């Protein structure tokens, strides 16, 4: 006899955990199935070298939704302090590009006074559009493909929300959103390294570069969710979510992959695990990639030809690698003072650097001069490494999923070498301090984390895949199979650690069941 639950959540990343907790809070009996041995997904802390632990692949928590934390009862994790991100430029230029306003504006103005002034203008614009974008990111999306079927009140409220920006900001938002981020940043800033570093928020992990139209939208979304962070970073977040799940009685089955979603009469019936075990439930919510769910876990006959065609065209080509380094001693960047205490920095000296780094992946090569998002989690959490040692976590752009010649060990060490050389140019002596290095290519990320295509966002955040994510049939976390929902980053509102997709999905898990109950 197989076990029975009310809800099965597939995947124990931050979104899966959020969904599991929120459903359990509604009194449902929830099972959480995770393929890896530990929970946390891309935010899981991994011991990559004896004594050295990572803070996850996604090392930032600046996007975590405050409202979701509130509803999970994890409000205490939120701190209103913005983590400072630094841009590193050639010849020792260092400036904060994100963080507490006054310090950031001051830091930027040190390099070009006009940039300081324009940063104030930039932030003011972001603050004004924040309500509209955060409404988009924290609510059920409207299906404008069938806008006639949406409640007129909903449509009107959203339209008015946009209109209430005032005609100037509304037109400005509509104008800049589809723009290449390069043009947008050029309208504001002078300093090349500041623009380069800011552009990474728009393009990191995507198949796009600063000259790609639509990338401004990504920057706006990023800037408008960011506002607070998690005390203790991704490790604290993952620990808290796991603790909460256990408190709420969520049954965790880790080290066990789901191999099949079972269907009966077009409704979901349960899942089958790798070890042959079956679990039954009338509701299954999958936080893994929608493409994997629909194409790998469902029986072929569950999808129409059109749906199959559409989901296989969901773009999931990963473009970033993750490098973990164990370092002897602290890391000091040239030009940064001890006060700066740099624990998050970016190396993208100019917009053209980012663009050139991107060019390589179009031809299935990795960048000769990659651009980097560097975190040093040991500064906030010294437990991650032995005393006087550091962990450096680097997201490396760009590295193609399909590398010409394949991701061999030689290819991995060649890219590792390039990253180390690049960092050493900005942190002299860095290369001498390396104890160990572990590079995960997009292909490795796919293998290790089940990340389809190695795409960190579970799917390209191009405008088309942002407004309808992932496909019309799976709009609003639903799927063509009754009872099967999607709760991962491949659904609205998309990637990075925000927990929002997981939270929004819970409404859709509950809704049809309520309707059914009413009918009965």
């Amino acid at each position, binding site marked *: 006899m197989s076990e029975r639950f009310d809800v099965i959540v597939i995947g124990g990343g931050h979104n899966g955990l959020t969904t599991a907790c929120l459903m359990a809070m509604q009194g449902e009996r929830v099972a959480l199935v995770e393929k890896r041995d530990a929970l946390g997904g891309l935010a899981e802390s991994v011991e990559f070298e004896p004594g050295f632990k990572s803070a996850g692949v996604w090392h930032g928590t600046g996007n975590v939704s405050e409202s979701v934390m509130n509803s999970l009862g994890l409000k205490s994790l939120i701190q209103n302090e913005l983590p400072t991100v630094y841009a590193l430029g050639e010849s020792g230029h260092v400036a904060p590009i994100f963080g507490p306003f006054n310090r950031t504006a001051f830091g930027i103005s040190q390099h070009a006074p006009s940039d300081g002034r324009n940063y104030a203008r930039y932030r003011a614009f972001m603050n004004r559009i924040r309500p509209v974008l955060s409404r988009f990111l924290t609510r059920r999306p409207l299906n404008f493909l069938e806008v006639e079927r949406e409640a007129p009140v909903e449509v009107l409220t959203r339209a008015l929300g946009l209109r209430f920006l005032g005609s100037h900001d509304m*037109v400005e938002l*509509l104008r800049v959103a*589809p723009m290449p981020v390069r*043009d947008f940043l050029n309208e504001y800033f002078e300093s090349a390294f500041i623009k380069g570093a800011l552009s990474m928020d728009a393009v990191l992990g995507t198949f796009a570069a600063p000259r790609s139209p639509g990338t401004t939208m990504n920057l706006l979304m990023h800037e408008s969710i960011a506002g607070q962070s998690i005390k203790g970073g991704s490790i604290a977040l993952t620990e808290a979510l796991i603790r909460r799940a256990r408190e709420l009685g969520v049954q965790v089955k880790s080290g066990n992959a789901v191999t099949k979603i079972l269907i009966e009469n077009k409704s979901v019936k349960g899942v089958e695990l790798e070890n042959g075990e079956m679990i039954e439930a009338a509701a299954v919510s999958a936080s893994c990639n929608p493409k994997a769910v629909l194409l790998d876990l469902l029986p072929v006959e569950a999808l129409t030809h059109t749906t199959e065609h559409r989901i296989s065209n969901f773009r999931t080509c990963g473009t970033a690698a993750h490098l973990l380094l164990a370092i002897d001693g602290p890391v000091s960047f040239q030009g940064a003072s001890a006060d700066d205490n740099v624990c998050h920095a970016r190396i993208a000296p100019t917009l*053209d650097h980012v663009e050139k780094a991107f060019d390589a992946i179009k031809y299935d090569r990795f960048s000769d001069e990659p651009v980097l998002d560097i975190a040093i989690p040991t500064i906030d959490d010294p437990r991650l490494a032995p005393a006087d040692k550091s962990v450096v976590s680097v997201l490396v752009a760009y590295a193609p999923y399909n590398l010409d010649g394949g991701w061999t060990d030689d290819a991995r060490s060649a890219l590792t070498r390039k990253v180390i050389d690049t960092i050493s140019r900005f942190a002299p002596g860095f290369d001498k301090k390396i104890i160990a290095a572990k590079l995960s290519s997009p292909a490795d990320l796919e293998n290790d984390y089940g990340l389809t295509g190695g795409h960190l966002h579970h799917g390209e955040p*191009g*405008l*088309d895949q942002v407004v*309808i994510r992932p496909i019309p049939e799976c709009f609003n976390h639903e799927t063509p199979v009754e009872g099967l929902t999607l709760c991962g980053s491949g659904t609205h509102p998309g990637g990075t650690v925000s927990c929002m997709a997981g939270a929004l999905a819970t409404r859709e898990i509950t809704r049809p069941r309520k309707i059914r109950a009413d009918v009965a």
Partner: protein
Amino acid sequence: MKFSNKPDHPRYDAVVVGGGHNGLTCAAYLAKAGKSVLVLEKRPVVGGSAVSEEVFPGFTYTVCSYVVSLFRPHIVRDLELVRHGLEIIPLEASFSPLPNGDSLCRWGDAHRTRREIARFSAKDAEVYPEFSLAMSQLARFTKSIIDNPAPNPASLNPAEFVQALRSSQGLREANADQRFIYMKLLTMSAADFLDQWFESDVLKAPMSVSGIIGTFLGVRSPGTAYVLLHHYMGEIDGAMRAWGFAKGGTGGISTAIARSAQSYGAEIVTEAHVSNVIIKSGKATGVALENGDEIRADTVISGLDPRRTYLGLVGKEHLDSELTTQLGHYKFRGSSGKVNLAVDRLPEFSSRPGDGPHLYGDVAIAPSIQYLEKAYDQAKYGDFSERPYINMVIPTLVDPTMAPPGKHVISCFVQYAPYDIKEGASNWPQRREAFGDAVVDTLEEYIPGIKETILHRQVLTPWDLEQEFGLTEGNIFHGELSLEQLLYLRPAAGWAKYKTPVRSLWMCASGTHPGGGIMGASGELAARAILRKRAA
């Protein structure tokens, strides 16, 4: 066609600055409505970029624009252009030679095209008609957008709402599946979009290029898929067909519109250099010529691009800072050049030797998506492409009078040639011949021996297009056709309806909605807006 070089009268109802095809269209509509109209053109010929000129004795080139597709059929009827000599001959084929000696030719005949495609992919051959059908359906929805002024979403005026309903009519009729594809077209890259349908690079590459023509983007840049639709929007004689040549070259269109305008009483003066619009207390009252002459008019209409209109004819002092900022953000960055060749015999492609129907269409040197991306990558950092995308047509096959008997002219549209080369735009003249050589060298790979057949060569870099034709930064569309510069944002928010902040001054060219290509739509919509205003 001869024009006078001095206006007959000191005063007109309307003066149009710039005799490009939009300026002429606007003038013709106004004249037809009974207004006294004067068109002032700087060059000795009218047509702007839609001109045919005898650059070398005996050889007439379609100097800039070279094919017609989107010219609005109702304008042809309204202005009786056929009676005035307009004749458009549909292109027979779209031919793409490959470096390996093979080639793909898409024909007017669907079955023949499928057989051709099947040589590369049976699956693609099967999908091709399905794709064409889907695109043609979507193209119909676009018409309501380009045939109406762009509604302003920020306005609370009920009239705007009515206009929005009219523009969106096509999309409102569409079903959810069609809207999904439409949304994808608006936002995806041409290469990604085509990847969803086809597998063969040989087919995808020449199809994808329509998305990049005239823009500084690559086939992998999001937003380039949209222009694919334009290929299915082409209407000649009201029939949905692809592209065509005008008899006598593209200048044939301009000549027909000019004749039509004259028949309604419009006056056209060439070699008239307008220095500025005369503005008195915020109102345009006429134009001043460089020779000191002044011409009074109730309405002044600019057929120049937005930068030339506002910063050249009007002057910053008449504009508020908001508009000046917007104009500063408006992007031109021309990306293409033109190489026109006179040859003493028909080009012979190694992949398809001899004369044949494949030459009676357009020839695309676009062998693969990677080839096109490499061409773009070079341009991004300030070089012209060593191996560019070339779109070639041989107008003399359709109209043999354009060259001496047995000889031909070849028109090559070439991308990428960035206006801002790293040496600086004004150094283009020193790079001009190298650019021409890159084009000829590229052609030589597909047409061995073409070098020996060349009698004359005219190379137009983006710099030349700016100097000679007044196209700012060499942009052939009067500003990029990117999402942030379309509809109510073309050329600037609040001033997208042909009106300008200077009273009685209007705009009518490609820098206004819907812009781009030889469409005539901007000219017509501007004329209608002006007539409505004056009637009110």
